[in-house]
């Protein structure tokens, strides 16, 4: 375990998946998850984000938060690419249940079936849920 964590010697790279299941803005989970993901980027791990259930709403296009005066953090998802976080997985079943398609999302994602996402989730070293 301590060897795994020893990055300075070029330690083991682990597969981290951050699972997002909450809608943005109504609770703090989505914003907190982004903060943690951006921090994780500094440790040069194999990071992915999964968007499931109401978590798919985090990636909606066309957000305008002027009326509520809440911080619009949707641009941060576009910036993930710049931190080498390119594995964004969206569950097809969650999109369909909400009347959404990939075209409604503001970033390029990999849409997966529940079975495909389950397999990807199962091969992670660490899964962190928000």
């Amino acid at each position: 375990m301590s060897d795994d964590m020893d990055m300075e010697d070029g330690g083991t790279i682990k597969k981290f998946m951050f699972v997002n299941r909450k809608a943005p803005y109504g609770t703090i989970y989505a914003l907190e998850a982004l903060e943690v993901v951006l921090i994780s980027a500094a440790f040069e791990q194999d990071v992915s984000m999964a968007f499931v259930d109401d978590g798919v709403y985090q990636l909606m296009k066309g957000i305008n938060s002027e009326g509520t005066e809440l911080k619009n953090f949707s641009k941060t998802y576009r910036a993930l690419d710049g931190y080498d976080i390119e594995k964004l997985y969206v569950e097809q079943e969650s999109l369909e249940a909400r009347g959404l398609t990939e075209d409604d999302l503001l970033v390029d994602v990999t849409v997966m079936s529940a079975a495909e996402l389950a397999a990807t989730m199962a091969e992670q070293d660490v899964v962190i849920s928000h």
Partner: protein
Amino acid sequence: MLHIINKSPSDRNSVEAALRLATKGSVVLLIEDAVYAATRGNTAAAKIQAAMADLKIYALKPDLETRGLADRVMDGVSLVDYAGFVDLVAEQPNCQSWL
């Protein structure tokens, strides 16, 4: 009565409970994450559609816009701003916030 709901229908059953326990002629206002219930194709769309026969359904426009839903609202749902929210509270004899 005015029923105010703020939870996503695909996360909690507040929308479903409010629709079940609201009497005919009551008013429902969807705010915060409950505005997802007002969008076409969402998990509660059929229930909202059926409820419109007996209930007047409103959704808070700033909360829809904040979630990127401004152009996805179901026909028959009326939009209000914060001033409209206040008017609904003032017009109704009583209100209930569903948590």
